[in-house]
């Protein structure tokens, strides 16, 4: 278990006190967040096995495949992962590959996959195209402080201190691959991804240019081992 997973598990063990129940979603009702959390904590941790249909792209340990813009899932918030699976299945997030996989999963299976990946850990990949100092500084500025001239708030305002993510609300950015993050921002920018509450990511993405996107995604990609 890497430090991030340990921290997350620590947070979750607190919630376990009030959420000690087996996950048993009914066919119609969406699972409550506490159920997902409980599932996350009851799923096997440590060298968890990736699910066969997922690991081909997302890796044996959920490390993702940066070159193909496939996100790292290890240690990601179970609530966030479940929402994405549901959105793929319902078509509110559009991706032809993920749509088919998600649709084939039952409600319960989606919850199990989300919980399993939330409990996983994986080594952080080395940066394929390291940033220069100016780019890193700009990335840090956007992440930590935002930009008044661009009128964008700090990414950390929603994604948590140092981009570690906020359970049930926003995915972690720190340690995610720059390639995936950039493709996600571009999708929001172009409006091909629309499953953000209040159009929050679309609003922000539209104000960033390519230089900003390279800087901030590259910056977060370097933060996986440094800060967690």
């Amino acid at each position: 278990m890497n430090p991030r997973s340990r921290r997350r598990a620590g947070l979750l063990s607190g919630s376990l006190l009030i959420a000690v129940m087996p996950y048993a979603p009914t066919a119609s009702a969406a699972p409550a967040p506490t159920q997902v959390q409980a599932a996350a904590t009851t799923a096997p941790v440590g060298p968890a096995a990736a699910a066969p249909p997922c690991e081909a792209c997302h890796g044996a340990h959920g490390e993702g495949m940066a070159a193909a813009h496939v996100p790292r899932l290890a240690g990601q918030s179970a609530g966030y992962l479940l929402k994405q699976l549901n959105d793929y299945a319902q078509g509110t997030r559009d991706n032809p590959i993920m749509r088919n996989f998600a649709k084939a999963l039952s409600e319960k299976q989606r919850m199990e996959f989300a919980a399993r990946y939330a409990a996983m850990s994986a080594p952080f990949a080395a940066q394929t195209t390291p940033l220069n100092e100016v780019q890193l500084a700009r990335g840090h500025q956007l992440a930590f402080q935002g930009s008044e001239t661009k009128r964008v708030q700090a990414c950390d305002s929603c994604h948590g201190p140092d981009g570690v993510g906020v359970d049930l609300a926003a995915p972690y950015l720190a340690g995610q691959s720059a390639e995936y993050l950039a493709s996600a921002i571009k999708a929001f920018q172009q409006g091909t991804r629309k499953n953000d509450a209040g159009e929050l990511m679309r609003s922000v993405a539209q104000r960033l240019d390519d230089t900003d996107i390279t800087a901030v995604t590259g910056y977060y990609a370097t933060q996986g081992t440094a800060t967690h």
Partner: protein
Amino acid sequence: MVQRLKEVDVVVIGVGMVGSMVAKELAAAGYKVVGLERGQTRFTVPEFQSPAIHDELRFDVRKALMQDNTREAMTFRNQSSQTALPIRRWESFLPGTGLGGSMVHWNGQTYRFQANDFQLATRTRERYGKNFLDPDVTIQDWGVTYEELEPYYDRFEHLLGTSGKAGNIKGRIQAGGDPHESPRSREYPTPPQKEHFQGAMFRKAASSLGYHPFPQPSSNLSQPYTNPEGMKLNACVFCGFCERYACEHYAKSTPQTIILPVLLANPNFELRTGCQVQRINLDSTKKHATGVTYIDAVGREFEQPASLVITASFALNNVRMLLLSGVGAPYDPATGQGVVGRNYAYQTMSSVASFFDEDVIINPFMASGASGTLINDFAGDNFDHAGLGFIGGAFIGAVNTNGRPIQYHPVPPGTPKWGKGWKQAVVKHYNHSVMFSLHGSSLAQKQNYLDLDPTYRDAWGQPLLRMTFDFPQNDLKMAAHVTAKAVEIGKAMGAKQVEGSPRKGPYTVTQYQTTHNTGGTVMGDNPKTSVVNRYLQSWDVPNVFVVGASNYPQNASWNPTCTLGALTYWAIDALKNKYLKNPGHLVSA
């Protein structure tokens, strides 16, 4: 030595909401405008970013965004027989300071007043007879009507992008909105914010009792919005840090998000921060202002000559500026003569706490400053007051704005005030309680007023403002009546314990109530009972305009900001299309 600066067309005292709006319009019309702000420059980035902006100790407890009362306090007493003492720590009300003013730390609750409010004296007399009220009550008509202000309300709401549901469009009642509201010309710019759980509980209970719940009009926006100035705002994330804080998300309408960047880009405008205006200067006739004198952050004194002076500071500071400058005759409560400082009013706040079993999970922290649900069935004159012995009312709402850890811990009466028993009660009730706010009107009466303190002075040697205020009996009766109605709603929600706390006297400045201080530079159609005419122009010094909630002759059942925005656009129109084309009295006395 006083340095005399080059004359400009307009000097604006205070660059908050009103100052930004006035300066933007006049600079765009080609006038040279200087804005004097006593506080510091600040913007969404970097000053308002989290996690620093969510520091509850710094902003909530220690009031970091408020007027510095180590340098500039106010004094307070309940009645004129007492000696007033300085308020050394803001509690009851929280005047802001700095670029953007108090609007930076507001909750975003954006109500209109009703047609009745603007003609309160006339309508009360007509409906209840001329002897209905205590003879000490000094309510009066505004000199402007709702119908006249409607286009300016509309313009202001569209500047802010306010999220709400109309209840009355051009006389047609709209399902889901407030059926009591006066007619509006069109729907709100953006739909209401999402309703939280306690709002839904309130809606159901209030409906079951035959009332008319509707979503709180919010300027923490429900969706992205581009205002007529071209400013883009984001959707609110319901972080629960609005009032007393600034918004890090560009989601709350404040001068920084709705207008300041447009103003600051205009070369006709010059912003000077750290400038403490000492007085408006008058010529020897005392009927004409020549400009203002101010002291900058390093103590240098300047005279800024100007053809037109606009006081646009917080209501209480507008009053003080006129008193320090000798613009208008100070009010004397003994004789009833004079006008500056007269008709100071406030807001009569009550509350109801409903405590539920632990299986009812409220999650109070998931809120914005204006994401609640409320009713206006007991606000204003929306119910018959015959036989009740008071006028006015309050909105009742599940409008709790936050669940912040230091300040929010509802516990039932009888709970120990500290120690283990208190802690256990906080844990037990934190997530299973609903707090209603009862936001009540405030009548003016002759004993309540503002003047200059004879003893205490600010850091620049100027007398502090002195407040003499206690709740009128009318308002305490109103609070008791409306609180009883709200308790019934709490019971209809199924709470196992409902505790009403009607506002009771005497007024204290050591407990937070609201920052809705009004009056003191009242508008009207008679110079004997008002400081400014219906266009907010001084009766005595026609090249001074005073714009603020200090213009309200008395305060209504709702938050004052939206009405102030409407009045500001109303005054701007008069300035641009009447006064500046032909300077002089816009209304003959």
